[in-house]
């Protein structure tokens, strides 16, 4: 079955601190892509970071980085130096190469406190 599990429905972090959002997925494929999308209250889906499964090096985008463990099928998102604007729903998703659909998790709501 193609599933994505985000076990933390809600997380909170203090401004300037670091927080890690967890994600595990299930696929029998070996070539796929992983994503984290952010959905602020406006509900627009914004790409945060992406990772190709064939790359061992973890992706980073400024304050956002991932810990990709392919054998464990784990893809966590680390947000460093959290800002108030990071408060949003975060969705983990993946797509198998040469297929078309993104499979999403149920999301983690992140609150950032001043």
């Amino acid at each position, binding site marked *: 079955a193609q599933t994505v599990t985000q076990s933390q429905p809600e997380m909170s972090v203090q401004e300037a601190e670091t927080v890690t959002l967890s994600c595990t997925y299930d696929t029998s494929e070996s070539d796929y*892509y992983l*994503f984290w*999308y952010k959905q602020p209250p*406006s*509900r*627009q*889906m*914004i*790409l945060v970071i*992406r990772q*190709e499964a064939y790359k061992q090096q973890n992706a980073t985008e400024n304050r956002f980085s991932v810990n990709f463990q392919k054998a464990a099928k784990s893809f966590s998102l680390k947000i460093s130096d959290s800002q108030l604007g990071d408060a949003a729903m975060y*969705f983990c*998703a993946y*797509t198998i*190469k040469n*297929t*078309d*659909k*993104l*499979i*999403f*998790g*149920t*999301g983690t709501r992140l609150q950032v406190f001043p």
Partner: protein
Amino acid sequence: EPEVTQTPSHQVTQMGQEVILRCVPISNHLYFYWYRQILGQKVEFLVSFYNNEISEKSEIFDDQFSVERPDGSNFTLKIRSTKLEDSAMYFCASRQGMGTDTQYFGPGTRLTVL
């Protein structure tokens, strides 16, 4: 930076009525998608479209749904006879093409069926 746009931002309709949701994908993108998100639930794939035909669809995408690219810029989702359970946020997304895997999402259309 190019963006996916969607209109309207909010559509209210009566049960049984037809609705058309509109999207303008990023101009050089070749692959187009519709997803939906029922309030409080995860984002679900509906359909993908490439080269003027559906390439993949989910079990949600039944005969009540259709998609069309009527001209070189618009991509539409039609729901023929809306049901209460069609109330959701509908997201359009587009992807550039071969060798790229990232789907870029529009801001969504909130559909309310009364």
